[in-house]
């Protein structure tokens, strides 16, 4: 059970600092970005270890502010580049890398590309950033896709006019491919190795072209992607097959701002929305086989799964692509105690979940049932 920590700033993004895969540690540090304030800030918080001084047994300590730094403009997206560096895109169109110095517990600006996203005579807000260290890809309201390299002065590549409408989010599909979503409900696949400025694939819904605001890739199966948009519907797509989403599920009653697959336990998915709710989706695979054999674990199965048709061998395909939610057992739970203002962002790692709201509150849950 988590309680709110009020921080006097509307939180637009929260992200856990990555933990090394070898250690079984739970994450203890997260960063937040604020928006809609005269002085916006990028802040780093710690939830501390349960065994540290000052915390009673079983008591969930409040997040403590470690350090913060002023940020020019709203923080519209934030990602950890590595253990020490954080990348943000701003409403002024600037892309900034902050460095968190662990010894002195301070944050400073390490590199900045001001006005990376821009209009000829105006600022264009950047809207999304994705990292695959040392490469950084950002998208913005100007419809540009820009590729940077950390520690590299200039811009590596710009795809001008990648989209005639606003690109709202970007994610890496493979190390050389990125996926973007826009205001016309289209997913576009971009191959960064190609030099032409057109997408290698375009997928969209038929029917109403609802703007999409968030996208996330399945951690193990790179062809499965989940998106959410203005109507609050959760769509799961198979990028290899056709141009239509595989399943559509009614999730929220207002815009869905973020969707995340759990990084180590992808049967769990989390979404948060403008309607103030945070949902935890849990799917149980229909097959009886133990989970370590699923998802293309053994080699004999992978060869089959590559060509598996829709609705084929259920034990191979991910439970997310079953198409009919009633066939696979899909459970949804609300994770926040009561209705709040919009939940703008969430992040989940291990058993810890952090989210930020427009009510200027941060919620941390350290015992997510995954």
């Amino acid at each position, binding site marked *: 059970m988590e309680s709110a920590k*009020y921080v*006097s700033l509307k939180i637009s993004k929260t992200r856990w600092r990555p933990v090394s895969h070898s250690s079984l540690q739970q994450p203890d540090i997260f960063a937040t970005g604020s928006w809609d304030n005269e002085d916006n800030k990028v802040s780093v918080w710690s939830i501390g270890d349960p065994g540290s001084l000052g915390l009673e047994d079983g008591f969930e300590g409040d997040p403590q502010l470690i350090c913060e730094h002023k940020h020019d403009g*709203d923080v*519209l997206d934030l990602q950890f580049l590595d253990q020490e560096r954080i990348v943000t895109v701003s409403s002024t169109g600037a892309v900034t890398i902050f460095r968190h110095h662990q010894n002195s517990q301070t944050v400073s600006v390490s590199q900045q590309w001001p006005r990376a996203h821009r209009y000829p005579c105006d600022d264009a807000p950047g809207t999304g950033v994705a990292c695959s260290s040392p490469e950084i890809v950002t998208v913005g309201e100007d*419809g540009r896709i820009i590729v940077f390299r950390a520690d590299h002065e200039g811009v590596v590549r710009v795809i001008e006019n990648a989209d005639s409408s606003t690109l709202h989010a970007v994610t890496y599909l493979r190390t050389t491919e990125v996926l973007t979503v826009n205001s016309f409900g289209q997913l576009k696949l971009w191959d960064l190795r190609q030099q032409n400025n057109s997408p290698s694939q375009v997928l969209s819904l038929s029917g109403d072209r609802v703007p999409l605001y968030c996208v996330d890739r399945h951690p193990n199966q790179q062809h499965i992607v989940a998106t959410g948009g203005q109507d609050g519907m959760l769509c799961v797509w198979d990028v290899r097959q056709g141009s239509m989403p595989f399943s559509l599920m009614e999730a929220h009653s207002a815009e869905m701002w973020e969707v995340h697959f759990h990084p180590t336990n992808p049967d769990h998915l989390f979404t948060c929305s403008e309607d103030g709710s945070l949902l935890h989706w849990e799917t149980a695979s229909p097959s009886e086989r133990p989970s370590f054999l699923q998802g293309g674990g053994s080699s004999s199965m992978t060869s089959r799964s590559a060509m598996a048709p829709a609705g084929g061998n259920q034990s191979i395909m991910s439970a997310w692509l079953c198409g009919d939610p009633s066939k696979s057992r899909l459970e949804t739970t609300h994770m926040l105690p009561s209705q709040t*203002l919009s939940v703008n962002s969430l992040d989940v790692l291990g058993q810890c979940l952090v989210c930020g709201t427009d009510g*200027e509150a941060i919620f941390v849950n350290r015992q997510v049932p995954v």
Partner: protein
Amino acid sequence: MEEVDVNPTVTNIPAIRHGKHMGFAWGPEDILVYETQFKASGPSLSGPGGSFIHKVRKDEDIHSPILRKLFNESHHIFVGLQTIKEDVPSKSKKPQFVSISRNYRSVIRACMEELQQVAVSTKDTEMATQYGNQVSILLAIELIWNLCEVLFIDAAPAGSLLLHLLDWVRLHNADADEKAKDVLQSDSPAEHHHYWDVVVSYVLQGRLEEARQMLAKQATRQPASRNMYKLMDGLLSKMPFYNPGGTQTLTEFDVKWRNWHEEVDRYLKDNSFSSNYHLELICKILVGDEDALLEQKELLSTWYHFLITRLLYCHPTVKPIELHYYAQSCLTMFLDSRSVQEPLDSILLAAFEFDIYLVIKDCSIVLNNWWFVAHLTDLLDHCKLLHSHNLNFGSNMREFLLIEYASGLFTHHSLWQCAVDYFDHCPELGRACLELQIERVPLDTERKALKVLRICEDRQMSEQVRSICKIMAMRALRNNRLGSALSWSIRAKDAAFATLISERFLQDYCTKGTFSDLDLIDNLGPAMLLSDRLTFLGKYREFHKLYGEKRFKEAAKLLLSLMTAKIAPRSFWMTLLTDALPLLEQKEVIFSADQTYELMYCLEELTSSLDTAAPGADSPMQEQDVEQTKVELLRLSLARNLAMAIVKEGTVDT
């Protein structure tokens, strides 16, 4: 007009030179002030005055980061309060209201503690004083709220009333506990110079158990006076306290109390404690001797403490309606000629008199923002304690205060989102106010516009939706983001704007020869139907696609339908007919005879309208020539096609 109760404060504008006249303009929560050239006497100079505009804000609290937490948390509690069901009778809701009141108070206390910590740790003396002021204001607010909770919301009857009031006083008098801590931590508590202060404070607050424990320490030190201490201990232990949950009625308790009181009086008159000054003092207090109590002014520190102690030891069965007599007299007795009645005192007095309106009015005047009165009035209204006291402007007091508070929040760059919920719960004027305010929220990013739109759409404010979408669409158009502009007009279902955007696309096509933003036009989907022009654009693009795929028959059919169904704008017909030329010139007959007749009809319609339109002197001869040539070419091709079509259709395959 009523007299102003408080003298208005004077604020100096440092940057405006002394003696200059100021001009001003009212804003929603502030005043804009500027220097003018006006002179009271003599001619005014012309030319610019100072080049700055100064913004004078009354409410600084809203911009304090710590107090912001107060606004957010109380917003959460407020929304929860509004959703309590109406059909349940008020009586069973009382514990709920009391708990909500306690929530509000705990939020105030948390804020206060944080401010206190910051005030202590900051090195800037000006900030420290500011924080200190805020802490004392919050202390006062919590004091008043607590008293209102006891008197109005909990509304305890005689008997329990005093117990609640005792709790109230104990909560707001931390001095005794601090001194007690010092005393107990010292080596020999009984010899500490504050020892007797602590004992007397306990007795004044009715904490007799603790007083007895403290006295026991002294008793062991003075074995000679053992009997006296034992006697005092006995008296203290026998004092009856009313038990609301018990079987004893109020009258029975009263009788018991009077007996005890008489006993204590007897011992006092017998001079049983005369050898020990302190014990005699305690005895006098127990008997309720006013002079003895007044001597303890320093320990009591406030007149309301004096009031409660006096009631405890003179009239423990005081009824709520009797409170104000005692309150007034205690206040007068406590304040000597030197000290003046402060606003806080009059507010508390008004509360004891059960004059809710006076309490709220005085608080509104003294405090610089509406937070406290708005939330308290709302809670009292839910407890059905406010009669419909209609104000001149048609709404009731609760709504008036909530709207004032919310309007103040709306001017804040960030807290406007909280304000929306407050307007929602003002049935009469809330919606109108929200409609006015929401349009004026500055929209820097698409994300903010989306949130504002969601607020408007949820409340069916279609005018505001249209207006906001139009602003965003115009901005996108200005930055040449046609796709974004189109998506905004689709959201607003704004056909006129969609037409405008399609015109832009078509213009682009005419000038460049190709379509820009093909990804958009190809994927319009059902949005195409929003405006005729948009439909035309989509269909025209489809024609090009069909042509590119060499599906000529279908392309031809589509082209024709675009003109005959009048989807295409007249100005574009020439282009369409020109597009038909290559189809007409094909070896294979694509247009059937009927279709050709229709094309000819369209051409005639077009040329006749062009002819009837006054040939402008400004259209150069060259253009007219070009037009003429085009028309002739078309006529020729159409005639040839007609011939071939008739022949083809007339031929019978053998």
